[in-house]
C-alpha cells in the first residue's frame, strides 16, 4: 500500500513538472507571437537563441579552432560541455542547431527540476516548497535562459545533482557530476568549496572530537569522498590541456576575458555605482541587493553554508568586473531562488503567496519581451 502511494506520488510530480515545462514553453511561444507579431517557429527559435547562443553554436560546430575576431573575442571563453552534447546529438539528429539546442536545454531544465524537487524533499521535507520552486523556474523571470543555447540548464542540473548525491553520501556520483559541471562553466569548479563546507558542517554535527586533526583524519579516511572531490576539477583541467594543444595557452579561457572589456574593480564599487550614481537605481544593482539579502537569509537564518558558498563566490568573482551577469548566475545557482521560495512558503497569508506567483508570471513575461528584443541588460 505504502509502495503504491509512493509510486502515485512519483507519477504526480513527474506530471506536474512535465506540465509546468510544456505549458511554460507554450506560453513563451504564444507571448512571442503576440509581442513580435510572428508565429513562425523559425523566428521564435532565432529570437530565443540570441547573444551568447551564437558563441555556443560556434563551439558546437567548430570547436575552439576558429581564429579570434578582430576585437579578440573568441570561443575559448565558452566552456565545452553543453556545445559538445549538442554536437553529439546533432550527429544522430541533424535538425536545425538552434531548435536542437533549445530542446536539449529544456530537457535538462526538466531533469534539473526533478532532481531539485527531490532535493527539496530530502533537505526541507516540504512538497509545497518543491512545487513552488519548480513553478518559479518555469514561469518566472529568466526562464528563457533554460531554453536557449546557453549552458544554464545543464549547469543547474549538474549543480543540484552534485548536492543531491553529496547529501546521500554517493560521493563518486557526486564527483562525476562535478567533473561534468567544471566542464560546463568556469564557476563549476567552485563546488569543491561547497563539498568542503558540507564536510565541515557534517563533521561538526556528528563528531565528538572537533579538532582539526580529527577532521583531517576522518575526511581522509573516507576514500570515496576523497576520490569524488578529486574528480570535480577533471572537466576544467581536461579543457586546459586541450586549450594548451589547440591555442598554446592552458589559461586561454581566462586571458580571453580581456576582449570583453572587463576591468577588475570591486563588487562594492560596482554596487555603489549601480545603486547611487543615478535615480532610479540600476536594475542590476537592485538584483544584486536582492541577492545579498537572500544569501544572508540562507547563511544566517537557515545556516546552510554549503548551499551558500558557491553563489557567494560566484557573486563576488563575477561582480568584481561588472554586475551584468550577476542576475543570470544567481538564477542559475539554484539556492538563491530556493531561499526566496522557502521564505515565501513560510508566509502564512495565502493571498501573499498567490500575489507572488502572479507577479512572477507577469515579470517573467516582461523579461521575456526584453529577451526577444535582445536587451543588452539580459546578455
Amino acid at each position, binding site marked *: 500500500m505504502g509502495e503504491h502511494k509512493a509510486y502515485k506520488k512519483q507519477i504526480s510530480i513527474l506530471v506536474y513538472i512535465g506540465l509546468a515545462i510544456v505549458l511554460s514553453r507554450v506560453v513563451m511561444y504564444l507571448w512571442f507571437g503576440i509581442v513580435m507579431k510572428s508565429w513562425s517557429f523559425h523566428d521564435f527559435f532565432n529570437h530565443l537563441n540570441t547573444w551568447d547562443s551564437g558563441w555556443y553554436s560556434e563551439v558546437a560546430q567548430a570547436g575552439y579552432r576558429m581564429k579570434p575576431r578582430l576585437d579578440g573575442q573568441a570561443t575559448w571563453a565558452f566552456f565545452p560541455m553543453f556545445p559538445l552534447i549538442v554536437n553529439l546529438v546533432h550527429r544522430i539528429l541533424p535538425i536545425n542547431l538552434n531548435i536542437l539546442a533549445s530542446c536539449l536545454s529544456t530537457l535538462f531544465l526538466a531533469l534539473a527540476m526533478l532532481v531539485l524537487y527531490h532535493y527539496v524533499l530530502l533537505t526541507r521535507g516540504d512538497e509545497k516548497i518543491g512545487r513552488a520552486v519548480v513553478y518559479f523556474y518555469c514561469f518566472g523571470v529568466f526562464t528563457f535562459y533554460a531554453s536557449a543555447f546557453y549552458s544554464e540548464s545543464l549547469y543547474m542540473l549538474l549543480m543540484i545533482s552534485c548536492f543531491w548525491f553529496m547529501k546521500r553520501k554517493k560521493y563518486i556520483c557526486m564527483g562525476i557530476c562535478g567533473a561534468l559541471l567544471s566542464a560546463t562553466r568556469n564557476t563549476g569548479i567552485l563546488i569543491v568549496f561547497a563539498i568542503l563546507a558540507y564536510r565541515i558542517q557534517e563533521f561538526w554535527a556528528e563528531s565528538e572530537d572537533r579538532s582539526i586533526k580529527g577532521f583531517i583524519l576522518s575526511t581522509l579516511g573516507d576514500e570515496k569522498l576523497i576520490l569524488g572531490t578529486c574528480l570535480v576539477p577533471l572537466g576544467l583541467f581536461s579543457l586546459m590541456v586541450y586549450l594548451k594543444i589547440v*591555442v598554446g595557452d592552458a589559461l586561454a579561457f581566462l586571458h580571453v576575458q580581456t576582449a570583453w572589456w572587463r576591468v577588475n574593480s570591486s563588487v562594492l564599487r560596482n554596487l555603489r555605482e549601480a545603486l547611487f550614481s543615478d535615480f532610479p537605481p540600476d536594475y542590476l544593482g537592485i538584483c544584486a541587493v536582492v541577492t545579498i539579502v537572500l544569501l544572508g537569509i540562507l547563511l544566517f537564518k537557515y545556516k546552510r553554508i554549503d548551499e551558500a558558498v558557491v553563489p557567494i563566490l560566484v557573486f563576488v568573482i563575477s561582480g568584481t568586473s561588472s554586475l551584468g551577469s550577476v542576475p543570470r548566475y544567481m538564477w542559475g545557482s539554484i539556492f538563491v531562488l530556493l531561499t526566496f521560495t522557502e521564505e515565501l512558503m513560510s508566509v502564512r497569508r495565502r493571498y501573499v503567496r498567490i500575489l507572488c506567483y502572479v507577479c512572477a508570471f507577469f515579470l517573467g513575461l516582461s523579461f521575456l519581451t526584453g529577451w526577444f528584443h535582445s536587451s543588452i541588460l539580459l546578455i
Partner: protein
Amino acid sequence: MRKTICYLLSLGLFTFYLVVLCTSGKRNASWEYEKFYIDQDLKYYVSEQELQQYTADQLWEYNQNGQSLNLGKGWSGFEDLATWMEGEESSFYIWLDSVQEKPYQLKISTLRRLKYKREFYVNGEKVDFPKAKKGIYTVEIPAEYLKEGLNEFTIVTRNVQKYCDIDPESSDTRLLTMFVKSVELCSGDEEHDGA
C-alpha cells in the same frame, strides 16, 4: 582493495592537476596572442604578417572609412571622422622593411586635442613632441630610433580626466585625449610639406 584503488586514483588525479598547473604558465601561443591577450599591446587581434602592410610613406586613417588596424593600446572605437585616443598611453605601429639614414617625419593629423601635456616615444626612446599646427603634429624622428620590422609610437598624456569632468554638459566618462584622423610616417628620402 577498493580503498586502495580509490586512493590511487585520487593520487593520480591530483598529480595530473599539479602537472597541468605547473605547466600552465608556459605558453606556446602565436605572436598576436601574446601581444593581444597577455601584453595587451594591440587594440585589434592582427598577426605580425597583417601589420606588415602598415608601412611608411602611406596615409593610415582612423575612421569608419579607413579602418587601419595598426593600433596598440589606448584607443576608443572608430567614429565617422576620426578615433579618440583614450587613457594615459596610446600607441600605434608602423612597419619598416629597411631604415633610411635621414631623419623621418611623423605626421599625426588630429581634429581635436584636449589641453594636456604630452610626451612622445619611438620604440621606448623619447622624442621632442612639438605643438600642433592647424591640427597636425609633425614630429622629427632620428633614424637611429627606428628599426627594421615593427616600430611602436607612443603618446603619453599625464593626469587625464574623464571627459564629463572637463565638459559638464557631456556624460562621456571616457579618458579622452586626442581625436586622431590619420598618421603618416614619411621617410627622409621624400620631400615633405611643412606642417
